[in-house]
């Protein structure tokens, strides 16, 4: 049986707790992601996908319920421990390819490693170069990311997400802002990384065709998982 990378147990999330406008966004989510899976998270706007993604990415905490990352329960961890775990275990790819515009492609890919260790070394560089090569951008390594196209930036973001060899990559509509061709190639790239390295992927997407090409589709509506389909 494949090992579990992430597990959610009865996770609820409310905003404005204790005020008259208290709203519960997630109503008890149970979800498990196994190693090597490529999961699509679908659902209409406002269904709580981003909130769920932020909780899984340790950027936000659940109001109640438990979150296990690689077997470790996270509710008792303090801010610094969460930051540490986030850096090591999780890679992010955002919809709007959020890169640091003041840095080159290579430096952006090195950034998670740099943040972890504080200073650069040759190994870091080599790793970043390998990753850039993997996403087909080794020629662009010294370009400022602000001078690159949307598709290229998203590839840099994927390379960056993989920098610390995370067990899980969370991708929030990674192809949402790209044209069909670029979207296809970015998806192909993630799928390839997933198959080659066994990294687990969770991808939020509105693209039904793309979702159907994933190992599993999780459909979220109004803060509840309404259906799960396995291929």
């Amino acid at each position, binding site marked *: 049986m494949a090992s579990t990378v992430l597990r959610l147990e009865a996770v609820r999330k409310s905003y404005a707790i204790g005020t008259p406008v208290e709203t519960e966004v997630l109503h008890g989510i149970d979800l498990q992601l196994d190693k090597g899976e490529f999961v699509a998270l679908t659902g209409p706007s406002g269904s709580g996908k981003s909130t769920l993604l932020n909780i899984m*990415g340790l*950027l*936000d905490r659940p109001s109640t319920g438990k979150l296990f990352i690689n077997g470790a329960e996270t509710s008792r961890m303090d801010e610094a421990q969460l930051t540490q775990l986030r*850096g090591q275990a999780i890679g992010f790819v955002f919809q709007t390819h959020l890169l640091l515009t003041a840095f080159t492609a290579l430096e952006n890919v090195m*950034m998670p490693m740099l*943040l972890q260790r504080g*200073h650069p070394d040759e190994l870091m560089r080599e790793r970043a170069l390998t990753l850039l090569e993997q996403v087909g951008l080794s020629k662009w390594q010294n370009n400022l990311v602000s001078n690159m196209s949307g598709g290229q930036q998203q590839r840099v973001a994927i390379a960056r997400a993989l920098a610390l060899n995370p067990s899980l990559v969370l991708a929030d509509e990674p192809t949402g802002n790209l044209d069909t061709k670029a979207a296809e190639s970015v998806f192909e790239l993630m799928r390839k990384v997933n198959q080659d390295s066994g990294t687990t992927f969770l991808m939020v997407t509105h693209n039904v065709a793309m979702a159907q090409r994933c190992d599993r589709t999780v459909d979220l509506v109004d803060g509840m998982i309404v259906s799960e389909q396995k291929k």
Partner: protein
Amino acid sequence: MNSLLFFEWIAAIRFLREGRMQTLFIISGVAIGVGVIVFMSALLSGLQANLFYRLLSSQPHIVLERPKQVVTPLHKAGPGQQLLAAIQTPQQRVSSVDQWQKVRDQMRLRKDILAVSPTVTGPAFAVKGSSNQAISLTGIDIDQYIKIVPLHEKMVAGTYRVTNNDIIIGTQLAEDMGMQLYDKLRVTTAGGANRTLTIVGIFDFGNRSANQRTTFVLLSTAQNLLNLAGAVTSIDITVADPYAAETIAQSIASETGLNALSWIASNSQFFQGMNAQSMSSMLIRLFVGLSVAAGIASVLVVSVVQRQKDIGILRAMGGSRGQVMRVFLIQGAVVGLLGSLLGSFFGFLLLTAWRFGARNPDGTSMFEIVLDPKLFLFAALIATFTGLVAAVTPAIRAARLDPVVAIRG
């Protein structure tokens, strides 16, 4: 290696570089502030040093005199009695310091005193033909006295080395009486003594009344003319630390029972003026410093808002609050440091321009401005520190940003 904060430095410098205009403006702002502070400080310390030198080089640090003569009523009021008496302040005659040789030797033993010079001073008339002028006759021991007042630096003609029949006078007296070097001058005193002396030197104290009134003769000459054989009217003293003159004067007064008047006490107005000047320049510097700090802080606050997304990315990628905070602290310090370097250069240019521009009519510089490297170092340190302190609030704000909110923008 972590202690070098490599990541923080790189990120701080990249962020500053990316925000070109903003960075340039705030660095110029800091530079102008630092430049003004450097210029003002150097100008003021040059000016004050010059004023102090002028004042101190024309008078002793401490003058010892015989205590003032006082009257004490013969009868004292008994219990239940009221004494009706009019007490007149006695006139102060020119009179000698008791046992002045002993006092002089005692003073020479003190470590805080550099030079001791007994002098005889009294009123006299300078007479030439039918014209005469009231003068102050000062009898000095020349070798001792030049350690008190650097006469040799003040001479405009002739020599300060006098013999028994010589006199040194000021430029104004020479002009008033139409006299030149080696002319004869008759000096008479109220006691009836008179003597004809040769003018061997003319000095300029830079002060009209001193140049008109003050004259120097040998101690023995003055003693003869003023009818004070073997006596001195005051003992002039130079101390090692001019600013401690008042304390030393008080200790001498209690040690000898003489009146000890320090230059600080006799120039209290000058000191008040100096203090007021220092205080106002201090305030100006403080406010310039504060406005520099406010400038840095406001630019960084804006930068935190602009960098919100970047901060969110850094946090999402495992960057700690401490790392984010230090990135902004370093930005503040770097802005302070670069601004102060540029400002020091700017201040240096201003001072150089001043040195060339501000001159006396005769072409000599008005006063010497010393460009002290310490001043520049100090300005750089203070500005860097100010930058760091100014960055604290923005840096804390940056560190506290919720990554979820930050990424959403």
